[in-house]
């Protein structure tokens, strides 16, 4: 029989081929259509096209009028900065006007996007799609000098700014089980350790956007709506955070990607008053400024644009020079968080780098939309570029002191001290150390119940302390490191961050507890003070023994890695409701609050019940989530027995839920608010100095040497008078 090269398919083969193609199509459809639907119903969230009132179309005339105004403003500002002020006001005015209308000046000063939009005929800003019209891809220069063209939308969607978590390795965070987070094959999504927040960790799902009915006393009973929620500082405009990114498969729906707020970072004239919660038929979400005015003033990223959100975690919301706090919203004004998370502002008033015009991205050098936070860190686990350094040394040499007579001696300290140790002398007084979420206080001006800050201080030894740090941190934000002498007595998790000894602090806590007792008669002041200042007292003797063993066996090695230096760390602890079924030697799973009911009623158990009734929290207490991430999470958390799926809400009652302080204080790195002039020698080198050398693991002889006040006295003397002795 003669063979042919191409045989017509037999009916069976044809059928098989058709079936295969159909299955593939079916799977694709299922993944693209059914999976998102199934996912939405599983987590109880919805997606819908997002619209914004500020995104309006202008007529050609309106566009030109706006362009004229923006151009004039920009030219006016720049010309006024150039023309000498020391002259007749009228003469100055004439010169400014001349300069403003010079051809090259117009070309260099007018916001560049006026021309681009005019040429492209764009008279309405519609979010990312408008930007992507020209910026579909961007060129990214990596740290090693390689240049790549990347898809802009993909780049931003996969950045921490959008999804605020990542599952890649390379973290400086270690679990209490001694394992580096996500270094093994089982990677889990992790974000940041934000214990100052009432909705910590992944619970952003439950507190993304909230409208709170406030009743300010001066308003005589009138209700004012206020905005609150994690979404105020994240660039997604959806009804929930980028939850899809927590799953091993699936992508953020395109509607959500279209909700990304490009302009909050890229526009110089962004109106923060547009940043408030809005309600539509699908639910609550954060509004944004999509006006053409904001779009036309797109310009280079600057500290000003970053600080619209980031002053919140540095100087604090209530910081005097927080610009964003001046524009809280046209309606539904944002609630200002009092009690600063770090209290180290980045502003020309309080930071020498800001004062010299240095921009955030000069140190945090971005690669596309990925912005490095440095290799060292204790509270921010997610990291877009874990391999990239952000250090003082990248600009300052290893011998940065050139001014002082003692410059060599000052430089000598760098082997042991971080720059911040001397150059951040104090934090803002608003800096909160102990915050009680369980017993809120009525704020009559705001007409809200707010968490009670039991202790605030910006002073060394009180608001922050000094710890050895090699760049590693624990899963609950404790700095790890050790004295380079190899000390085995340095044990911050049993000492510095596990108890408050300062009598002044204890007295302040006591007085605050006494004050709280008037509102909450059930408070036992002595017990309250003990729990707050000696959080280890909440552990059973067995737990305490286990804790000590875990520190020795799991963390000692991590503490001894690399080179440690002494850094300042802001201290923080909070009292929250904990799920005691999932308790370990370092703490238990903290439960979130529902913002609206918390602020409105101050009924904290009711608020917790409401928050954990959220479908996503219920999912968390089910088997798939346990296997997918919670067992691993608990192991890092120091709970060796795995995640107990005992849902703490039974028949509307909280079961096995107790209010507790975390078993140790968190330590947050402080790197901003740098002052040019550092500390005086005597601030540390004296018997009652700000540094507890003994607890830092020095031998008694060395402590005596380090505290030796005579040496310091000697430094001050003139050589002549010293010689005369």
């Amino acid at each position, binding site marked *: 029989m003669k063979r042919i090269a191409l045989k017509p398919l037999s009916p069976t083969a044809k059928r098989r081929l058709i079936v295969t193609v159909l299955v593939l199509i079916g799977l694709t459809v299922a993944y693209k259509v059914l999976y998102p639907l199934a996912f939405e119903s599983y987590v109880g969230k919805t997606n819908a096209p997002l619209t914004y009132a500020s995104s309006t179309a202008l007529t050609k005339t309106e566009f030109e009028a706006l362009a004229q105004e923006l151009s004039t403003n920009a030219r006016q500002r720049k010309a006024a900065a150039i023309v000498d002020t020391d002259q007749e006001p009228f003469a100055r005015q004439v010169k400014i006007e001349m300069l403003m209308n010079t051809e090259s000046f117009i070309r260099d000063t007018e916001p560049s996007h006026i021309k681009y939009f005019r040429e492209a005929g764009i008279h309405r800003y519609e979010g990312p799609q408008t930007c992507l019209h020209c910026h579909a891809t961007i060129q990214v220069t990596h740290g090693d000098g390689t240049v790549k063209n990347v898809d802009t939308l993909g780049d931003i969607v996969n950045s921490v700014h959008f999804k605020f978590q990542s599952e890649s390795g390379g973290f400086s965070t270690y679990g209490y089980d001694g394992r580096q987070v996500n270094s093994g094959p089982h990677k889990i999504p992790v974000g940041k350790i934000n214990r100052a927040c009432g909705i910590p960790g992944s619970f952003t799902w439950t507190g993304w956007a909230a409208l709170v009915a406030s009743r300010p006393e001066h308003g005589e009973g009138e209700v004012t709506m206020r905005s609150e929620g994690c979404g105020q500082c994240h660039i997604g405009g959806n009804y929930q955070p980028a939850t899809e990114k927590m799953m091993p498969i699936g992508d953020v729906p395109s509607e959500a990607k279209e909700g990304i707020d490009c302009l909050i970072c890229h526009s110089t004239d962004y109106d923060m008053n547009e940043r408030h919660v809005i309600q539509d038929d699908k639910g609550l979400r954060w509004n944004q400024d999509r006006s053409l005015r904001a779009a036309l003033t797109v310009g280079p990223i600057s500290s000003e644009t970053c600080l619209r959100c980031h002053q919140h975690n540095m100087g604090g919301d209530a910081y005097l020079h927080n610009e964003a706090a001046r524009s809280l919203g046209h309606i539904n004004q944002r609630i200002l968080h009092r009690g600063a998370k770090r209290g180290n502002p980045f502003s020309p008033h309080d930071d020498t780098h800001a004062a010299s015009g240095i921009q955030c991205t000069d140190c945090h050098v971005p690669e596309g939309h990925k912005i490095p936070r440095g290799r060292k860190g204790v509270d921010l686990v997610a990291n877009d570029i874990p391999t990239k350094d952000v250090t003082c040394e990248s600009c300052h040499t290893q011998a940065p*002191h*050139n001014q002082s007579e003692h410059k*060599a001696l000052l430089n*000598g*300290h760098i082997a042991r001290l971080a720059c911040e140790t001397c150059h951040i002398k104090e934090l803002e007084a608003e800096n909160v150390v102990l915050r009680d979420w369980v017993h809120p206080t009525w704020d009559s001006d705001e007409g809200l119940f707010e968490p009670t800050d039991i202790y605030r201080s910006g002073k060394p030894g009180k608001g922050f302390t000094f710890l050895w740090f090699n760049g590693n941190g624990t899963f609950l934000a404790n700095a790890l490191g050790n004295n380079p002498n190899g000390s085995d007595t340095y044990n911050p998790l049993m000492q510095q961050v596990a108890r408050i000894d300062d009598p002044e602090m204890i007295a302040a806590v006591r007085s605050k507890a006494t004050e709280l007792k008037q509102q909450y008669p059930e408070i036992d002041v002595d017990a309250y003070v003990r729990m707050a200042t000696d959080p280890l007292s909440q552990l059973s003797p067995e737990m305490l023994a286990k804790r000590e063993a875990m520190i020795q066996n799991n963390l000692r090695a991590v503490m001894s890695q690399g080179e440690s230096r002494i850094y300042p760390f802001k201290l923080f602890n909070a009292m929250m409701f904990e799920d005691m079924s999932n308790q370990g030697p370092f703490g238990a799973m903290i439960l979130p609050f529902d913002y609206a009911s918390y602020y409105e009623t101050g009924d904290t158990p009711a608020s917790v019940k409401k928050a954990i009734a959220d479908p996503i929290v219920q999912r968390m207490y089910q088997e798939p989530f346990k296997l997918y991430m919670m067992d691993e999470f608990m192991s890092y958390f120091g709970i060796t027995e795995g995640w107990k799926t005992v849902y703490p809400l039974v028949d509307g009652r909280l079961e096995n839920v107790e209010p507790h302080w975390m078993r140790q204080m968190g330590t947050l790195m402080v790197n901003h608010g740098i002052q040019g002039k550092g500390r005086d020698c005597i601030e540390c080198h004296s018997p009652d100095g700000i540094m507890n050398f003994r607890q830092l693991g020095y031998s008694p002889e060395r402590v005596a040497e380090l505290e030796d006040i005579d040496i310091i006295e*000697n430094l001050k003397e003139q*050589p002549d008078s010293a010689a005369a002795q």
Partner: protein
Amino acid sequence: MTNLALSGALLLTLIAVATPAASGSPATENKSCLRCHAMATLAYRDPGTGDIVDLAVNPHALSHSVHGEIDCIDCHEGDFGRYPHPADAANETLSCVGCHEKDDTKDDTKDDTKDNIARFKSIDAEYAESVHATSDSAEAEGFSCHSCHDPHGFRASQVGEEIAAIVRDDNQVCLSCHEKVRDPLSDPHAWLPNREKHWNAVRCLDCHTPLSDNGKTVSHQVLKAEDSNRDCVNCHSRESSLLNRLYQYRSEEDLATKGWLNKAVFNDAYVVGMSRNATLDLLGLIVTGLTLLVLAAHGFGRYKAYQRTKGKPE
């Protein structure tokens, strides 16, 4: 107690009153200096050049160095008794000769090359011929002993030390200035086969100093590139010149117990041509011969078997 001893004023008195010989224990003296100078980052930037001037002394390296037994003030005789040191103290001239001068009690004409403590006379003569001394390149200006030998950390290699470590540490001294050598594009060693291996196994000095007689250590006369040794056979031969240079540091005792071959192998320093072992050669020959024999026998067997089947009908 300690506080008092450490106070600058008292220290000054101590130094003023006591002669170096009669002063307190060396440890105490050095401790006062090391209180600051042990800081690894003690340094400042020279406003004139912008360069970082390193003032740090590694206490561990110092105590293990050739100068480990000496007090700081034995060499640094300026007015360093208090901090801040007077400005003119920085201009001190170090009086190395105080220790390193020729010993009058010894015969002036005697060859000092065997004297491990201070054979400065012959070193001086060798150095005078060195490219470091004769070069008129601007880079060689101001070249001194301290350009290579850190007086606070220098220690001569000792018999019994790991050869690889000796090579690494020694070459590091040269490479700290001769950076170009690290650049594969402009490295003058490109001709050298197995360049990386050579660098890990021998010192720069083993080729860049004149060949010396048995029993003499490496000269301080560093040769110019064109004068340096390019003859492979100098090392790769049974009478390798490496034997009395680099391999002088092999411990005799080690050699006795482990044997020549083992020591060379464990040092990762098997030198082609030098470390030839006659027994091994013979053994190799026997193994090769045996292999050939087995092959031949096998072939013969197959041939026989073939013939047998050929003769028989199917």
